[in-house]
């Protein structure tokens, strides 16, 4: 009888533990998905997997973080990059990096054509920074095609500004230099 009771208690504890483990896993996965985590604990979405396979995966050498770009732009020394916005015009008009030029959306053939024209006369070693910030990094349709175009054209010193969530969150609301308008 006593043995039955101990067995029953053990089984009860096991049930609770299993339930709690599943719930904890579910909560963690849900929270990660909701926050667009790109950390090692997050389950990768198809978009993230696609981008991880590309050269522009978070953490790759082709990317530059906002704080590093700000340092370069504000430093009195060193080569200044040509900063090109390859995102939507309406977002650029609201806020953009001072000195950056609007090119056109990288996902659009006209935008790519415009990029091609802009860089054609430049030396292939020109330091160029591309940025967009329309959407979370794994969803941005613009930076990868623009980067590919410059790579194809032979540019060897191209960086892409890593904007994890959007230009507002990762640049404007952090207090980095911003202007609006044309």
């Amino acid at each position, binding site marked *: 009888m006593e043995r039955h009771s101990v067995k029953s208690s053990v089984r*009860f504890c096991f*049930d*609770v533990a299993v*339930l*709690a483990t599943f*719930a904890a896993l*579910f*909560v963690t996965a*849900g*929270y990660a998905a*909701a*926050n*667009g985590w790109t950390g090692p604990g997050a389950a990768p979405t198809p*978009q993230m997997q696609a981008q991880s396979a590309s050269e522009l995966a978070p953490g790759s050498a082709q990317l530059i973080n906002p704080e590093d770009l700000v340092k370069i732009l504000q430093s009195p020394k060193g080569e200044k990059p040509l900063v090109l916005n390859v995102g*939507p*015009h*309406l*977002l650029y*008009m*609201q*806020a953009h990096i001072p000195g950056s030029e609007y090119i056109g*959306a990288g*996902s659009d053939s006209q935008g790519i054509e415009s990029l091609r024209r802009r860089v054609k006369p430049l030396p292939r070693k020109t330091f160029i920074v591309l940025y967009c*910030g*329309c*959407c*979370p990094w794994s*969803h941005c*349709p*613009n930076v990868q095609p623009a980067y590919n175009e410059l790579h194809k054209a032979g540019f060897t010193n191209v960086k892409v500004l890593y904007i994890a*969530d*959007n*230009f*507002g*969150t990762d640049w*404007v*609301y952090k207090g980095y230099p911003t202007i*609006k308008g044309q």
Partner: protein
Amino acid sequence: MRRAVLIVVAIILAAGIYEVGRRSSAHSKLGVPSAVVHSAAPDFSLQDLDGQSLALANYRGKVVLLDFWATWCAPCRDEIPHFVALQNEYREQGLQVIGISMDDGPKPVREFYQQFKMNYPVALGTEKLAEAYGGVLGLPVTFLIGRDGQVAAKYVGEVQMPVLEQEIKSLLQAK
């Protein structure tokens, strides 16, 4: 007794899951200023895709779901079928969905509108309108406006539909 304990544990965990979901989708998730929340929704008057006038003032007394989106925005595209379903489900109770496209031109928007069988008005956004709503510096951004014309909620990023629907139901109940 033990079964009751298990049920209580399950309920507590379910409540936890709901709360995590609610918070992760809430306004201040990304530290975005939500200046317009709990204040009067800025009025606007635009032309929809058919050239008809689209003025927020015309929907006073309804609950308005105002969606800033674009055809090139993947999370926005995922949301649209849900907004179409919400418009169908709650139209009679007083829900009005309005889409503000941040595309640079109307052509892709018209094509998208047909393809996704959108059942609510859509207009092209302007810089002025985006700024009036606190700046739309990333998409999607969704606002819920109560029957009193006050902004009740702002969601930055893809919204969690169960959370949104709950908020809509709650606003629809307010007379």
